[in-house]
């Protein structure tokens, strides 16, 4: 038995060491750096500076993430429902291929694409002008908060739809048939039968998307208009312009807190659901 345990530990050790060196150590170091001075003594000064200088950006980040997550949940559920429940199989096949495309496009390319698409003289406005729906005087730029949201939603939609479609498809087909058989419309099947069962997957997709959105630098820099901006851009600014790792790490701590807050919200709901089931 002793031999077995030590053998198993050896098997796990390489992966555990990699996680510790590449993930745990930098994480702990950044947390430590956020709450200590150069001499190693404890301080809340960096957090205070972060809130003093960047409270608007923190609020802006929270709003951008919340709106993006809500839109993501709504749109990815609609697309997944169309794929799973639609009677028009040929349309579903095309949709099934199309929605996956953003998965293969990096964030920086997406941001560049959206710049040329959403600008005042961008592709979208030009198309409206060419089709006669708008005059050049009426055009507005979507670069800014709305552009950031559009970019995040467009990019993350593929990922969250993939997860949600998978969860919907994994449900027993006869459960959906049973509901139709008893007279339920497709909308009722979605809201009363499917969604309550795939809520945990929807939560996972949203939490993971939040973490991704919080960590992307290219989108706020390329689509945003400067102020307010997202805290990932502020962190880059503190490091690149001032070499101020303490405040950058303090902003990182705020990012963790936002992600943790959403994760807590999701876990609380899913545990409540499980508690009701048990």
């Amino acid at each position, binding site marked *: 038995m002793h031999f077995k345990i030590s053998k198993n530990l050896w098997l796990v050790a390489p992966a555990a060491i990699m996680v510790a060196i590449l993930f745990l150590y930098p994480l702990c170091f950044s947390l430590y750096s956020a709450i200590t001075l150069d001499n190693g003594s404890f301080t809340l000064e960096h957090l205070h500076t972060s809130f003093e200088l960047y409270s608007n950006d923190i609020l802006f980040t929270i709003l951008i993430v919340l709106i993006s997550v809500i839109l993501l949940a709504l749109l990815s559920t609609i697309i997944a429902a169309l794929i799973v429940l639609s009677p028009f199989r040929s349309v579903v096949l095309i949709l099934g291929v199309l929605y996956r495309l953003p998965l293969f496009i990096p964030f920086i390319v997406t941001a560049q694409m959206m710049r040329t698409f959403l600008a005042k003289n961008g592709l979208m406005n030009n198309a409206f002008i060419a089709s006669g729906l708008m005059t050049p005087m009426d055009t507005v730029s979507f670069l800014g908060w709305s552009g950031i949201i559009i970019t995040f939603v467009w990019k993350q939609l593929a990922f969250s739809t993939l997860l949600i479609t998978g969860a919907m498809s994994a449900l*027993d087909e*006869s*459960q959906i*048939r*049973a*509901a*139709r*058989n*008893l*007279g*339920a*419309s497709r909308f*009722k099947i979605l809201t*009363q*039968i499917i969604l*309550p*069962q795939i809520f945990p997957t929807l939560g996972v997709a949203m939490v993971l998307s939040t973490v991704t959105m919080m960590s992307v630098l290219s989108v706020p820099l390329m689509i945003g208009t400067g102020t307010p901006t997202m805290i990932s851009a502020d962190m880059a600014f503190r490091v690149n312009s001032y070499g101020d790792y303490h405040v950058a790490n303090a902003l990182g701590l705020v990012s963790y807190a936002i992600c943790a807050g959403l994760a807590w919200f999701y876990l609380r709901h899913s545990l409540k659901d499980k508690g009701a*089931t048990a």
Partner: protein
Amino acid sequence: MTQLKIENLHAGYGSKMILNDFNLEINQGEMIALLGPSGCGKTTLLNALCGFVPASHGEIYVGDRVITKLPAEKRNITMVFQSYALWPHLTVAQNIGYGLKVRKVKTAEIQDRVNELLVIVKLEGLQNEKVTSLSGGQRQRVALARALAIRPDVLVLDEPLSNLDAKVRLNVRHEIKSLQKQLGFTSLIVTHDQEEALVMADRIAVLNQGKIEQLGTPEEIYRTPSSAFVANFMGAENHIEWQNDDNTLPAKSAQQIYFRSESVQVTVPSEKASSLSNDVHFDSDLTCQGHVLQSAFFGHHYRISVRCGAHTIQADHHSDLPENTPVTLRVTADALHIYNNQVETAAHHVPTSFQSNK
């Protein structure tokens, strides 16, 4: 009065037609069992009735109403699924009352109907339980109650007992049958278990390759199977091809003889008789001599395999017989199902035409 009428129905998946020109009529309050091997079209027929598989041709009537083109949710034909298809996030009562809730029936009425059904399916007190905490038999009862809650025009059951263990299956099948008699609902049950069909159904339709091979009462199907396929499917597992050597007949023809293992009388002959040749003799009764190949214990009898010439015959015997024991087998004329090779028409219990041929 005809409650369900299927007329010249063609249905299948994509370009592959499973049901071709299918016809069936079911009377009000009748239970019909669809019996057949895998892939014969039983489940496709249920799916076509419920609107899950489109009918490419033909009509389906419920009473005077044509429902062929109606979407699944408007047919008022409910299904009990093989996998129960209960919703795990809802309680027993919510599962049963779902169809009524969808129809916007008042909450108090739903509750009354659910309570009534809980009593009928013997699940009183379990209304607030999650279905995941129930046993297989209880889940199947919830599925049955859910399907009955909306008072469907026709109830279809897709192999409802196949996921249950043997003992529970016996109980549930009697319960379904007695419920059907008590409530008088029109139903169609799919099964591949002949015993289940015999016990539960008022009439049985034996399906083969998307068509009804024989439709009749359980006694008719069991005692006078109309074809070799039906005989074989209903348990006449022994098959002997009997070559007719009578030169007075216009052409030589082979007769297909089927019989059940329980119809075979087994005797262990004296030493002298055992020296007879291992051959099959057919003259009104069927007799043969052979040697035991193997014997298996079946509980209330032994199933022995006997080698008779080129044939291996299964026979039931009250006691175990060692390998190579010489035995004499006899099947009386009334237990034989005999079919002409060319035209598979019924010729039961040694038909007159066949006897005259000999």
